[in-house]
Every structure is written in structure tokens, then in C-alpha cells.
């Protein structure tokens, strides 16, 4: 069994669907940071069979919007003194800005470059879809 040191202060992103860990790692730019980060893949899980886990030392500030879009089923554990002091469920964000563009070619946001539209969550059962604040078309989210 692979053994990874516990972290003293930081966060653990747990219950990541097997295979999504790398995507989250990349989208959170964890390959660029200078604090210790571990991506664990294919970890045995009693609930899911296998799962991915990300451990981040010395940082508790991550982009929950991106995380919520990619893996709304994940759990965030805040670690202090090697103990979990808080558990949080990740949620699909109600509002997103700057992560994707409106899919509607007739939308003004695709013509005037200075616009950064806000997308509001329309529905989240099955696919995640957001309504553009300008044209109100639905844009399905996929990374």
C-alpha cells in the first residue's frame, strides 16, 4: 500500500471521481504552485470502489467555482494540526464568470471583446447548463 504523509495545515479534496483528479489538478493550476501538493489516483474506496484525492499543504484558498463545475460530489477537508477541523461539500456554482464563453454565435458577448458575461445556473440534473446574462441562451458546461 502506497503511503503518503499527512498534511499539517491545508486541505484535502476527497471523494473525487476516479480519473477526474488530474483534470482538477490541472484546472486549479496546482502544477505551478510552490507549496507541497499530492495527487493520489485510483485510491481504494469503500463507497466508490476507487477514487482520486488531492492533498494541498499550506494553502486553503482554492477556486471552489472550478471545483464545483468539475466535481460537485467532492468533499473538502480543512486540516489544522493534522486534524480535520471542517468538512465542506462542494456544490455546483450558482454563478460563473470568466470560465467559459457563451455558445450562441449571435450573442453580443462573442463580438465585443471587453465583455465578461455572468452565467447563472439553469439546471444541474444530468448536464450542467448555464444561462448567459446577455442572450439568455443555455450553455452546457464541459471542460
Amino acid at each position, binding site marked *: 500500500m502506497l503511503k503518503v504523509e499527512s498534511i499539517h495545515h491545508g486541505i484535502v479534496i476527497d471523494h473525487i471521481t476516479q480519473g477526474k483528479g488530474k483534470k482538477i489538478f490541472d484546472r486549479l493550476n496546482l502544477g505551478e504552485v510552490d507549496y507541497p501538493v499530492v495527487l493520489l489516483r485510483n485510491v481504494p474506496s469503500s463507497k466508490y470502489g476507487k477514487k482520486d484525492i488531492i492533498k494541498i499543504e499550506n494553502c486553503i484558498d482554492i477556486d471552489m467555482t472550478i471545483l464545483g463545475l468539475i466535481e460537485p460530489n467532492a468533499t473538502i477537508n480543512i486540516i489544522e494540526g493534522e486534524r480535520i477541523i471542517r468538512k465542506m461539500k462542494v456544490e455546483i456554482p450558482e454563478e460563473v464568470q470568466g470560465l467559459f464563453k457563451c455558445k450562441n454565435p449571435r*450573442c453580443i458577448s462573442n463580438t*465585443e471583446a471587453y465583455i465578461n458575461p455572468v452565467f447563472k445556473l439553469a439546471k444541474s440534473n444530468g448536464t450542467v447548463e448555464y444561462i448567459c446574462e446577455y442572450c439568455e441562451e443555455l450553455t452546457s458546461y464541459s471542460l
Partner: protein
Amino acid sequence: MSLKGKHLIDPGDFSLTELNSIFQLAEKIIENREEFSEICKGKILATLFYEPSTRTRLSFEAAMLRMGGKVLGFSDANVSSTAKGESIADTIRVISSYSDIAVIRHPKEGAPKLASKYSAIPVINGGDGGHQHPTQTLTDLLTIKKLKGSISGNRVAFCGDLKFGRTVHSLIKTLSRYPENKFVLISPNELRLPEHIKHILKSDANVEVVETEDLELVIDSIDILYMTRIQKERFFNEADYVRLKDSYILDKNKLKAAKKDMLIMHPLPRVNEIDYDVDDDDRAVYFRQAEYGVYARMALMALLLGVYENA
């Protein structure tokens, strides 16, 4: 309650009470136009039409002129600074210092909303792509109120291009806010109402919606038949337009089965979707609808400018 200084981008920007205040004033204007002939003296309307329009632009211009105001603007994006690459944000900032109120028509969806964010004066959406056309909605609702007696409790059928028809999108969303309206959607499969609007109708407003491709099948159950043109300018592909353009043509024969008090409405311009024979039918109200459009726009601008406050 005051509408002074507000923008009209989407009919949803206004509460039903605010919408009713517009209709109240419009009805007062219809009763006594002379009383309102100087109400906008000294005010300037800017008409920023980035795509061709005759009816909406002239209706706005007529509305402002009938209230004693003045009008400036352009009706072709190629002769405006847009052709030089000016952004909408910059255009409206400049226009804000030239005029008191602006109406914008733009082929891109959401352009008037964008303008409203940078504007110091009230912005009215005069139609944006296939998205919204709120002043047509005011026109349509005023027509229904005047000729049907109530905006509620009607079975309203929309026929033709329900995909790109912005008049339909604006009207159906607004009608769904009034109680006990039911909808029948008649269109070819390729021009069905967009899912995001159906989602609003079914999930948010929880109204009855029936979809069919057959006008004759449902015409006997309709209180208001809203016909639309298949819009050539909305198609990327000419072949698709040619295939679909004659999908529905309303004629006297089809009207035999319709209710005696059904209203036939159309935002105009008509191409061939309503036979000219139908024009003489008492149920055909589309030209009166166009006339009401001027009164609806007069009332709207008077309230947004704050030159009139409803009691």
C-alpha cells in the same frame, strides 16, 4: 411607483403593475392625443438602428414627434462609427450626452443590455437578434387588452417561426406572467420554440403548453392567433429558408373553423403567411396593432423620461 430613468431591455424588467401603468397611460393617450402633444417638448430620442427596420424605427419616431420631442439617429450600422470599429459601450456613452432617451436595435443578442450598462440615459431594446423585442410585446399586450378586454385567461397560439422570432419570445414569456393563459405552439420541427423558453414556461410559470405542426388541427380552440413571418435574415443557410418559408399560410378557408371572436395578430411586416383576403375579416387586427404600437411607445417613453407620472 415610477419608471423614470429605467431601461427596458426585457419585459421581465417591469412588474405587472409597471406594465399596467404603461397600458393605462397608453389608453389615456388613445382617448385624448392632443393632451399629450407637447409632453416631450425639449426631449430628444436617439434611434440607434444597427440593422434595417422600418416599422419599429418609424413607430418610435412617430411616438416622439407626436409628443412634441425631436429625433436623431442612424438606421444603418455602415454609416455609423461602428463601421470604424467603435464599441457599443463607447457609442452609448457619447449618445448619452446628445439625447435624453435611446432605442437600440442590433442583430447581436444582448447588445441593448450591454448598452444599458454604460448608458446615462434610459435605453429601450428595439429588438436584438432572435432574442427580445419588448416594445412589440407592449404593443401586443395593449392590443389584447383593448380588443379582448383582458390580458389574462386566453388560449394563445403562436404560429410560424418560433425559434428565431423574437416577438414571440418576448410576448410568450410576458403572457405567462399573467394568470390563466394557455399556449399552443405551431411550427415546423426546425423552427420550434427554444428549449430555454419552454423551460421557463413549464418549470417557472407552470403553464399549459401544447406543440403541434398542424394549424388546422387546433384553430377552433384558439382565442388569439399570433402569426409570424419566417425571417430570411435569421437563416445561415438559404436552402433551409426556401424549404420552410411557406410552411403556414392563413387564408379564409382555414379561418372557417376558428372562433368568431378570435384575434388574428401579426407583428408585421407580412410576407405571404396571411392571405390578403383575410385583411377584411373583423378578426384581423394586425393593422390596428401597428397603430397601438405608437401609443404604447409614447406611453413608455413618457414614463421613462419622467414627463408624466400615473396617478
